[in-house]
């Protein structure tokens, strides 16, 4: 739970300094997944990150979607996993599947 607070606090600091910020949250997992439901990644408009939603395998793709969400303000639901062929490039090596919700803060 310390990481939850770490993400919230950093996101708060980014917002206070006038940055655009998005938060990505693991909302469902199937099989073995590196981070539990509720894990969060905060992203600012320069692409800086705090926290994590995987062991590092999908963060790159999530940051891209987060930057898009900061721009257009729309929430996004992302699926990652080995059964999704298109997501294989950024997929989870461990064979798990995760669903990540991305939304703009503020």
């Amino acid at each position, binding site marked *: *739970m310390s990481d939850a607070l770490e993400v919230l606090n950093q996101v708060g600091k980014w*917002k206070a300094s006038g940055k655009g910020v998005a938060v990505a949250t693991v909302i469902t997992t199937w099989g073995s997944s590196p981070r539990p439901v509720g894990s969060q990644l905060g992203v600012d408009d320069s692409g800086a990150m705090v926290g994590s939603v995987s062991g590092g395998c999908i963060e790159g793709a999530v940051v891209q979607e987060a930057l898009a969400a900061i721009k257009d303000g729309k929430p996004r639901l992302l699926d990652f996993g080995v059964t999704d062929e298109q997501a294989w490039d950024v997929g989870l090596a461990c064979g798990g599947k995760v669903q990540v919700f991305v*939304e703009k803060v*503020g």
Partner: protein
Amino acid sequence: MKIETLAALQDSRTKRRAVTLATRLSDAAEALVYLDGATGALAGDTAILSAARRAMAIGRSETVDLGGQKVFLNVYVPPARLIIVGAVHIAQSLAPMATLLGFDVTVVDPRGAWATDNRFPGMKIIQDWADEAFQAMGLDVSTAVVTLTHDPKLDDPALEAALKSDVFYIGALGSRRTHAKRKERLAEAGITEEQFARVHGPVGLNIGAKSPAEIAVSILGQIIEVKARRLEALAGPKVVAA
């Protein structure tokens, strides 16, 4: 996530108040659900409120399907507390390591020479006898207590007070011989064998730890294990989402 929501989550954390953030996935509409109330755009949705409170009771975040609307329930429970009795050398490793693990750490020692900001930079320190300090803090089911002083007049009252509460973990530093003597002393104070069995002693996992830092790792390994098993038992078998 609204900026007011972020502020409310941080505020709840400071006040050690449990809260669940419900977010509708279609439009990111929110409700902050507390045990005794709710705020936000979805706060009037009784199905969401009851699902959020159930998730809070078992301490597990999840996505639920409520009559066709998918809602993510993110449970924020206050972090587990670790109270370290004895501002000794091992405590100087244990306190920062436990902080890194997300524990809300307090060091308790009535001896002013030991319980100093210099020895424990940035740590919460209470210069008082453990039983007095416990009374002020209020021991609860999300608290762990570890005694490290080796001194019966400091450790024993702490263990006695901890055993009378429902803390999830109690550990006491000391050899098997020390632990056996401790058991005899506490028996005289009215602690039964069954009650005493809650005390982990010699404290920590048996990993051959020698240095203060290694002993801290063995203690934290044991606390993590006890905490995880307890939560598993509370939550029951994991339901796989459809």
